[in-house]
């Protein structure tokens, strides 16, 4: 009887994770695309030296963006199944992509609030909040993006 309850609960959680998780993912991607379109004017340049250096006066400021996104139950389950056979885990890839693009967007939003036109020397970093000491992921992706905003005057 206990085994049955466990199986039913697991299936229920998988269904909840699959439906709500994929719905949230679609909604998030839609919002990311919209905001990326709106913030296209702010250039993101990973190079270390601004091009028209010394032609127009500008000041610089450090801008950061960060986000933590959780995996849903279905993704965790399907990902761990995939790890048995190896290969590309597309469930995780979309998660990483969402986190990365969201972090960039938040950095750009901060730059926009400071009336910046470009962000230079963009670096990425990931944090480990929900991981244990052994490094096993607790089911979330944490992304940080930071760079120097160039504000022309």
């Amino acid at each position, binding site marked *: 009887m206990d085994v049955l309850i466990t199986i039913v609960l697991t299936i229920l959680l998988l269904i909840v994770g699959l439906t709500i998780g994929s719905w949230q993912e679609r909604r998030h991607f839609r919002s990311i695309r919209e905001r990326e379109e709106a913030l296209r004017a702010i250039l993101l340049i990973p190079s270390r030296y601004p091009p028209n250096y010394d032609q127009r006066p500008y000041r610089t400021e450090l801008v950061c963006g*960060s986000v933590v996104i959780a995996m849903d139950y279905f993704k965790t389950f399907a990902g761990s199944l995939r790890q048995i056979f190896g290969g590309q885990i597309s469930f995780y890839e979309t998660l990483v992509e969402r986190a990365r693009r969201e972090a960039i967007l938040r950095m750009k939003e901060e730059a926009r609030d400071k009336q910046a036109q470009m962000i230079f020397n963009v670096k990425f970093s990931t944090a*480990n909040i929900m991981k*244990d000491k052994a490094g096993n992921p607790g089911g979330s992706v944490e992304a940080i993006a930071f760079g120097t905003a160039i504000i022309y005057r």
Partner: protein
Amino acid sequence: MLLSNLEFVPGCDIVQYLGLVQGSSVRAKHVGRDIMAGLKNITGGELKGYTELLQETRQQAIDRMAQEAQAVGANAVLNIRLSTSSVAAGAAEVMAYGTAVLIRPRQQPGQIQQPGQIQQPGQIQQPQAAPGRPRPPRP
């Protein structure tokens, strides 16, 4: 204090390099947030509590680095990098490090720039040779 992850300051000269400065911070949220984050693993989506935690931790690390830079007599920190590590589950550790420098606006008409609280030439005080690096005060 001017913070930047470029290696120079536009319109300014670097007068003196004062070495590496760093600041780190480890913070955690209360257990209620951790439980909610665990529940959120069923449906997925953004963990707002942990995003907030990450922002607070990062800000504190940057503030501590800036305090240390101030203590060695710098007015800017360049080439800033952020790095993270995992100390415990549910806690975020962020380390910020960079090069503390003393900068001075370049004396050319039209190109002078005075970001933040850059001291004017003539007012720059040489950092006194302290016996050992002063620790930034812990809040």
